């Protein structure tokens, strides 16, 4: 029968022993991507706020970049949810008829509040730059310049005052927004943790620590991604400078880069240690209290998912980068390897929560394995397969590339600090 083919989840779920008939891996790769992307957004914003709010001057270079990058990441945080819905055309319903006892009913509200904060902060930081662009492009020939000027005119929102008093207000507003943004960013992500942590039917997810664990790992991944992207861009700039023969500029870039990276690494390490401690606390607590579900949880964690959890997540994703970052004689290259591993580790943590939480049956008598669709042969296997995930992962860079054309994230003279 043809309808057999389209049972959601049947395609990629392999059952073992006794599993209830209706149980499948309903939440697949896109629900792994959702907290991963939200985490990156929140983390990137927190990194930028460390400079704006707490005056961590050494983070100035990366702060401005992180702010713009968090805007690029923001729309992508909602894409996995859209791709995962069985009725994507009804995606606006949670906003139209929110049912507030549901942990996901307020997603649209929290998400748009946060989006507005990021947008406004960027506007205050870059307003003077927009005004300068409007003035500089005035009277320049070419359709391109005219179009650019039009965009910048729209971006100023008609506020052309660049007096010292006006700039001071911009500065103050950006700082206030950055400060307000921290709790909202953390809430946005802690909230993603709550969505999982509050599912009482799921023995692995249900934990009041879940939101906090999510926040810590979010900041870790956000800082890591910003640092990594920053290094890649700076190295590329240095490479270009060297090729054009401007050797002095290249060393200058190197100096700025390594200083920024050293400072950011300190924050990364702090949050990494906090994240690992909380996760281990959760694990130890489950083992010690050994509730009814512990038998099956243990067989999943120490058996079926051992490689995923202890080798890939804790080992390769946490321990190795921790050593790489703390052992003396750290180089940029070693930092890059550590950052990639950190990002991988946080991804594996999301995977082990989302997929691991569905790896055992509610009957506690069987298991389910997720076989991620690699080559798509239908819309469903694209959306909930490898290529859907890769699309989501690539989107922020595409958006950043476009944003950076108008809001130069790396030009220190562009934004007000």
């Amino acid at each position, binding site marked *: 029968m043809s*309808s057999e083919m389209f049972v*959601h989840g049947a395609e990629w779920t392999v059952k073992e022993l*006794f599993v209830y008939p*209706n149980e499948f891996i309903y939440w697949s790769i896109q629900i792994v991507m959702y907290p991963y992307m939200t985490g990156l957004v929140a983390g990137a914003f927190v990194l930028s706020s460390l400079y704006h709010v707490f005056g961590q001057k050494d983070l100035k270079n990366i702060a401005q970049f992180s702010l713009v990058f968090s805007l690029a990441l923001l729309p992508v945080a909602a894409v996995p949810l859209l791709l995962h*819905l069985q009725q994507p055309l*009804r995606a606006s*319903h949670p906003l*139209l008829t929110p049912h507030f006892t549901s942990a996901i009913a307020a997603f649209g509200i929290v998400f748009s509040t946060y989006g507005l904060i990021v947008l406004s902060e960027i506007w205050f930081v870059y307003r003077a730059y927009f005004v300068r662009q409007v003035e500089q492009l005035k009277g320049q020939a070419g359709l391109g310049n005219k179009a650019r000027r039009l965009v910048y005119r729209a971006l100023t929102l008609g506020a052309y005052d660049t007096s010292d008093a006006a700039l001071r207000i911009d500065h103050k507003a950006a700082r206030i927004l950055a400060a307000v943004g921290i709790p909202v960013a953390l809430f946005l992500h802690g909230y993603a943790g709550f969505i999982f942590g509050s599912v009482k*039917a799921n023995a692995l997810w249900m934990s009041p620590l879940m939101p906090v664990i999510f926040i810590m790992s979010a900041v870790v991944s956000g800082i890591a991604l910003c640092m990594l992207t920053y290094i890649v861009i700076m190295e590329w700039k240095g490479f270009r400078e060297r090729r054009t023969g401007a050797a002095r500029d290249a060393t200058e870039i190197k100096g700025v880069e390594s200083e920024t990276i050293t400072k950011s690494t300190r924050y990364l390490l702090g949050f990494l240690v906090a994240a690992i401690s909380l996760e281990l606390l959760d694990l130890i607590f489950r083992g010690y209290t050994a509730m009814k579900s512990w038998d099956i949880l243990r067989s999943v964690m120490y058996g079926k998912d051992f490689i995923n959890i202890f080798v890939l997540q804790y080992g390769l994703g946490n321990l190795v980068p921790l050593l790489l970052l703390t052992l003396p004689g750290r180089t940029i290259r070693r930092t890059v390897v550590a950052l990639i591993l950190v990002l991988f580790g946080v991804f594996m943590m999301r995977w082990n929560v989302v997929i691991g939480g569905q790896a055992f049956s*509610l009957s506690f008598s069987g298991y389910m394995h997720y076989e991620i669709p690699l080559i798509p042969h239908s819309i469903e296997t694209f959306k909930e397969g490898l290529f859907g995930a890769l699309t989501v992962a690539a989107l922020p860079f595409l958006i950043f590339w476009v944003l950076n054309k108008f809001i130069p994230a790396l030009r220190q003279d562009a934004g007000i600090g």
Partner: protein
Amino acid sequence: MSCSRRKFLKQTMAGALTAALPGITVLSLAPGEARALAEKSNLRWVFLVDTRKCVGCGLCVKACKLENEIPYDAPITRTWVERYVVTKDGETHVDSPNAGRDGYTSAEIRGEAIDPENIEKAFFVPKLCNQCENPPCVQVCPVGATYQTDDGVVLVDREWCIGCGYCIMACPYGVRFFHPETKTADKCNWCYHRISQGLESACVQACPFGARRMGNLRDPDDPVTQIIMTERVQVLKDEYGTEPHVFYLGLDERVR
């Protein structure tokens, strides 16, 4: 007129709190409780399963699939029958091939033959939606597409469900699934379209042994209610605080 700021604020606060009180009270109640306060319905549907009468013929599953237009061969179902075989070594073997739809004609469990001499006990357990008094699926639906009726049955609005799957994740009993055709969450509703018209639900009607019965918990003279009130009945997974309303007679502690 003299009205100090302090007094003004005090009175405003008191007024606001008094006005909000009914709202707060209702919010902290389960949907069923709140409605029960507003209007006491004289009907609360309840289901009784006598596991000692079930022979695992699967007619209930068949009838359900046909009555409720659940694709017959698709691996999802609104109700199912589980087989439990406990061997002398204390091992529990459970299966439910095709949700038990075609009956249990083979002595093998997942390809493993079990020696009849080695069986300590064996029984069947029909499963269906528990129409919980405190349904987690209703709690987590972000759009209110799944809701509880006054008579205790949880329904799904196929026109409004966004297909997020949160309700499927929230149900501790695994009764929910995505309907392959409507692409919305689906579950057993005790044949609400039938019981509200005075008919029996498809599975109750199809059961040749009276293992499945339904009644009205608010009617003390209802034969099903009398059994529930006077006999030793059990529910599934009460530790989740869902207050399930499928009561079982002869339920073994091994059943999850």
